């Protein structure tokens, strides 16, 4: 969000300026600020590990938004009404916007968007595995809005207050725009559930396919999560994976009742003692398989992104060349 030029910690990587070396006084100042809930701005001193973690997290988030355009984009040309088509285009477009805001936030940390995109395309950088699943019917569009966006919103709201200013501001904008995404999905499903039996079956089938992947979106259990402790201290992740997941399950069960669908989990039931819903064991082997890209979905998604990028190379080059020519012409005229 803030300009790259003024936010790169150092212009010359060889320089050993005080702002980049690990410095106990700066470190203490940084820790105090973060612990007090303050914001770190792009040009402030930060530990190198903080910078690296942020780049990884923000760019992964950005990649997820961009790859996330594909499964829903898959239905734009087949949307059943003009109103739904417009809603879906606007939503997928928003995701592109969110990717853009997030890339810009990552760029304040001294990486270029091109470098980040290259990392995605080479498979070095990850994105949310949820987007490797296929969208098989129109009901998937509603269920993605309801469950996947619902889970994403819960994951994202805490980030609006994260310690890194540019990321926090990007997330405020993202969350503000995101609020219609879940509602439009639920609205779409409500309409289908009031329709024919075929439509209701389609919704139930989509719920059956997306429920487990959605609750896996909260990540591994807290005890198995490698990044959570450090990230929580830095305020770039404030609530535990398991707490958020529980909150999501509790909220969603009620919404499913109103909708008239059931979750594909026989162990899902209210536990009065805990004041929460219990739910069955998550198949983490499947989760890690998908995260690590061992699915053909991953191949197709990345191929689509790489194709768009490579097909666009001549366009990007043409615009730069025109700008160069124009500058030369203006120089000539002056």
């Amino acid at each position, binding site marked *: 969000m803030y300009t790259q030029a003024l936010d790169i910690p150092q212009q010359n990587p060889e320089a050993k300026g005080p702002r980049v070396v690990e410095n106990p006084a700066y470190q203490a100042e940084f820790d105090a600020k973060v612990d007090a809930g303050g914001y770190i701005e792009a040009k402030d001193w930060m530990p190198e590990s903080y910078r690296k973690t942020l780049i990884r997290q923000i760019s992964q988030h950005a990649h997820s938004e961009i790859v996330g355009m594909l499964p829903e984009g898959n239905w734009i040309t087949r949307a059943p009404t003009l109103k739904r088509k417009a809603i879906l285009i606007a939503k997928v477009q928003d995701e592109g916007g969110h990717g853009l805001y997030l890339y810009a936030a990552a760029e304040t940390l001294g990486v270029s968007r*091109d470098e980040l995109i290259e990392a995605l395309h080479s498979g070095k950088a990850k994105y949310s595995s949820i987007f490797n699943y296929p969208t098989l019917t129109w009901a998937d569009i509603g269920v993605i809005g309801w469950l996947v966006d619902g889970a994403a919103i819960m994951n994202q709201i805490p980030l609006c207050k994260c310690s890194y200013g540019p990321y926090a501001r990007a997330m405020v904008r993202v969350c503000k725009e995101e609020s219609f995404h879940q509602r439009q999905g639920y609205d779409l499903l409500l309409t289908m559930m009031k329709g024919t039996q075929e439509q209701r079956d389609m919704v139930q089938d989509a719920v059956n396919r997306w429920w487990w992947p959605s609750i896996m979106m909260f990540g591994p259990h807290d005890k198995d999560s490698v990044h959570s402790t450090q990230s929580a201290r830095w305020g770039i992740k404030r609530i535990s994976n398991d707490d958020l997941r529980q909150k999501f399950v509790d909220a969603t069960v009620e919404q499913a009742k109103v909708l008239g669908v059931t979750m594909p989990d026989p162990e899902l039931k209210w536990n009065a003692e805990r004041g929460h819903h219990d739910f069955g064991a998550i198949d983490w082997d499947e989760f890690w398989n998908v995260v690590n890209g061992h699915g053909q979905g991953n191949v197709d998604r990345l191929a689509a992104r790489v194709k768009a990028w490579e097909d666009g190379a001549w366009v990007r080059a043409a615009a730069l060349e025109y700008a160069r020519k124009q500058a030369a012409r203006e120089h000539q005229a002056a």
Partner: protein
Amino acid sequence: MERKEWPLWEVFVRSRNGLDHKHCGSVHAPDAKLALQVARDVYTRRQEGVSIWVVQADHIVASDPDAKPELFDPAEDKIYRHPTFYQLPDEVNHM
């Protein structure tokens, strides 16, 4: 080296007349004209603006974060610049 990435532009949007332009984000664009257009397409999709400025990021001159103490701390003790510094009788305290 050949530049392959479009330059970065900072985007400032006036949300309605009477308010300042406020920094709201950035875009990549090959030139000023397209920078304005894509800023419009990215940052005013929900009627967020009535006017846009774009500035190429390289052209912004920013204060040095290391100079924060000498730049901003000296204003700290000029408390007489603030209206609350002055205790006035209740009858005229709304001044």
